[in-house]
């Protein structure tokens, strides 16, 4: 089995993503590896990619703090975190993985059936198609995933 000493976990504000962080942290402890948490702020095209995104940056940092705390529960592991601004998250995740030479990208996917069919979404889809390293997709147990999807739909 391949060794996964360097793990990249893209983080968004949903339970599947945090589940992927927890699993990534367990793997990092087992492998005595490094876990990098990454949050990508997608900047709309009407603004330069380097535009000040204060609100998004604040919530991204808060999200990374929560993810870091969750990962730290796994024990004594090295955790890095990174907040990036990009046009779209998928290519930014793949580029970051390549720049850091990670062994695996671990990302959670929600349960959002479109027209009755499950789809992984554009970001996970892009990463699956383009990342040169391993990619692990984490989906929560169906009951939890559908409950989270229902909750999200109700809040819209």
């Amino acid at each position: 089995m391949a060794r996964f000493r360097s793990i990249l976990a893209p983080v968004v504000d949903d339970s599947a993503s945090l589940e992927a962080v927890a699993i990534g942290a367990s793997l990092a402890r087992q492998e005595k590896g490094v876990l990098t948490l990454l949050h990508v702020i997608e900047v709309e095209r009407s603004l330069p990619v380097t535009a000040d995104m204060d609100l998004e940056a604040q919530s991204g940092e808060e999200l990374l703090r929560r993810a870091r705390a969750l990962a730290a529960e796994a024990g004594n592991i090295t955790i890095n975190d990174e907040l990036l601004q990009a046009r779209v998250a998928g290519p930014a995740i793949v580029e970051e993985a390549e720049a850091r030479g990670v062994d695996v990208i671990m990302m959670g996917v929600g349960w959002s059936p479109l027209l009755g069919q499950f789809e992984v979404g554009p970001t996970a889809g892009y990463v699956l198609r383009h990342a040169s390293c391993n990619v692990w997709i984490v989906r929560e147990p169906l009951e939890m995933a559908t409950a989270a999807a229902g909750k999200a739909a109700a809040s819209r």
Partner: protein
Amino acid sequence: MYVIIGGGGKVGYYLARELLEGDHEILVIERSAPRAAEINDLLEGTVLQGDACEAAVLDGAGIARADLVAAVTGDDEDNLVICEIARYRGVPRVLARVNNPTNALLFQKRGIETTVSATEAILAQIEQELPVTSMVPVMQLHQGLELVEVRLSETSPVVGRTPREVLLPPESLIALIVDSGGVPRVPGADTTLTVGDALVVVTRAESKGMLQEALIGGAHGFDT
């Protein structure tokens, strides 16, 4: 530089791919959802699915901060609309693909100076290959000016004269002379035009007929 490309067909796709190599910020706007998804994967997520003829789509694409808009769809009407919106939004450089060369004048009348026509480019190439042809369009410049190449034959009325003695149409000038040996010369007071010289001339599009008559005489060459 931020470049928006209207149309994700073959021209738009390859244009975007080349520009991405140059480290520019690129966005391709493609109307067809399947085509947009297909090229988005190949162009590092730089494709927006939508109709580039709609101002709202272009606004969402950040046209207000674009340095250049290239309208390269297969429809001249769409390209004209994209360019019009881009100009209205203050984009400093606007470029259009013209599929039907006769539409080029329409674009120019609307203030879109830079047009590219594959048909004209191929025609120019063919004309360069044809020995009977004496006047070849080389390039479109700004403000309705063009660069043309004129090769002098034995029947040319300007052979044996100096460039100063040649009566050219208004706003036209001989910029360069390449002799039959391929040596380029800047026209001077003592330069004599000879058979086989290729004159590179700046002229107005509407003056090409007069230029042809002045340099070639009669009805030789194509007037494109």
